[in-house]
C-alpha cells in the first residue's frame, strides 16, 4: 500500500493504491486550473473518491471532472464516490454525467435546526437510508448543538435527484 499526494491548480489529491484499486481524497477547488484525467492512468480495477473537502466546482471544473469519469469508464474501472460535498451534488443534479454510472456511498446535504437555528452540511449514508431516499425523503438528523431534530434544508425532489440517475 503506497500513499502519494499531488496538487493540480487549487486542488490537492491524496491517493493510496492497494492492489488494483485506488483510494483518493480530494481537497480544495475544481476549476480551470485543475487537471484530473491523468489520475485514470493509476487505476486498474476500481477507484473510491472522497469528495467531502471539495468546496467548489465551476462549469469548467465539472467538464474536467467528466473527462476523468469518461477516462475511468473507458478503462472499465468501478467508480465509487464517498462523502460527496454539496458543491459536487449540485453539479450532479444539473449535469447527469457528473455522476455517470458511479456509485455514491454517502453525501452531504443541507440541514437546519428550527430549535437553535444552526445550519450545517450533514453526511448521509445511502445504503442504510436507501428506502427513505428512494421515496425522496430525507433521513432525520440530530442537531450537533442542541440535539433537536434537524430539518432537511432543500427541496428533496431537487436535491436527491442524482440518486435516481442510471
Amino acid at each position, binding site marked *: 500500500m503506497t500513499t502519494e499526494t499531488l496538487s493540480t491548480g487549487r486542488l490537492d489529491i491524496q491517493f493510496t493504491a492497494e492492489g488494483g484499486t485506488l483510494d483518493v481524497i480530494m481537497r480544495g477547488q475544481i476549476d480551470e486550473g485543475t487537471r484530473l484525467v491523468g489520475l485514470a492512468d493509476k487505476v486498474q480495477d476500481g477507484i473510491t473518491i472522497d469528495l467531502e473537502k471539495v468546496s467548489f466546482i465551476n*462549469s469548467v471544473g465539472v467538464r474536467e471532472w467528466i473527462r476523468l469519469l469518461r477516462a475511468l469508464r473507458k478503462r472499465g474501472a468501478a467508480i465509487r464516490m464517498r462523502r460527496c460535498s454539496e458543491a459536487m451534488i449540485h453539479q450532479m443534479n*444539473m449535469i447527469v*454525467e457528473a455522476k455517470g454510472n458511479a456509485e455514491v456511498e454517502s453525501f452531504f446535504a443541507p440541514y437546519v435546526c428550527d430549535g437553535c437555528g444552526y445550519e450545517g452540511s450533514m453526511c448521509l449514508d445511502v445504503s442504510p437510508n436507501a428506502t427513505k431516499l428512494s421515496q425522496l425523503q430525507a433521513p432525520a438528523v440530530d442537531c450537533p448543538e442542541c440535539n433537536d431534530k434537524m430539518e432537511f434544508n*432543500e427541496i428533496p425532489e431537487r436535491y436527491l435527484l442524482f440518486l435516481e440517475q442510471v
Partner: protein
Amino acid sequence: MGETAPEHTINTIPEHADRGLILVVHRDRKTQRVVHRILGSTLCTVDAVANVVQARKLLGKRVPELVVMDHNMLLEEGGVAFVAEATAAGARGCLVLLKDNSASELPSLFTVDALTNLLANPMPLLAEELTVTALKLLRDDIFGIEKYLSWGIECREIVLNNATQRADVVDRLTGDVRAFGLGPRVASLASLATDELLSNAVYNAPVDDAGEHFRAAEARDTYRDLLPREKVTLRYGCDARYLAIEVTDQFGSLDRHTILHYLAKAAERGGVDKIDFSSAGAGMGIALTYSCCNHLIYNLQPGNRTQAIGLIDVRFKPTELGSMVSSFNVFSRDPGDDQ
C-alpha cells in the same frame, strides 16, 4: 458600477396624473385579486380579464403599459401573438406568472420568443418581484441591486483588474457571506453563481468592432491584466431577505436570445451534450447561475453594459417556498440612454 441615483425614494404622483393601465390576463380570480393588490401600489389602473380573447378586445380600446399573464395562456393559441400585438402597440413589457410546480413546462417556455420576465416564486416573494419588475419597466430605470435590497444596506464593491483575480474575489465573497451569518448552503450557491457571472463578464462579454468575442477562446487560467474597458465590477450585499450579487461589464454584448438559449439548458436536466468540450468555456455559466439563484436578472444596454443580478433568498427554507423554478427577467435600455 455604483448607481448614484437615489433609490428607495417615494415617487409622488400628481393628483390627476394618469399612470396608465396594467392588464392582468389570468383565469384564476384569486390570482387576479392578489396581483391587483400588489400592482395597485404603482397607482396604475389594474384591469383583469380571464382569457386572451378578452385581452385582445381590451387591447383594441386601450393599450396597457404592462401585461401580467398566466404562463399557460402564453403557451396557448393566440398567447404569443397577443403579447406581440401589445408590445407593438406600446406596452412596456409582459410579466409571465408561473404556477407552483410547473417546472416541467420550463423547457417549452424558454423557447417562446415573447418570454422576457418570468416570475415563479410564491408569495411573499412574488409581491416583491412583481412590484420591482413593474416599476423598473414603468420608470425605465433598470440598473442596480439597490432596487432589490432594503433601504440603507451597504454593498461591497470590487473591481477586477486582472483575469485570474476571479478566484480570490470569489473567496472574499464566500468569506463575507459567512460573515453575514449565512450558512454553508447559501455560501456555496453564492460562490458558484459569482464565479460563473465573473467568468462570463471577463471572457465572453468583450467584443471588437466586428462583434467578435475576442476573449472567448482564451484559457481561463492565464494571468492577464484587464484593459480599462474590460474591467468588471462586482457588488454584493445582504438585507436578511436576499443575498444580492451584481456583476457588470462595459461591453453590453449579451442579448436576450443567448440568455434564453442557455437558460433552456438549465431547464433540460440530463443531456450529455450540455457541456461544451470544444471551447475554452463550458457553456454552462448562465444555466448554473440560474440554478443557484431564486431570481436571476439581466439588465442589458447594448454596446454599453451588461449587468447580471442574482438574488438568493435567505429568509425562507427552500421547502417553505416550495418552488422548484427560479424567476428571471431581461430588461433592456437603448444604447444611448444615460442612467
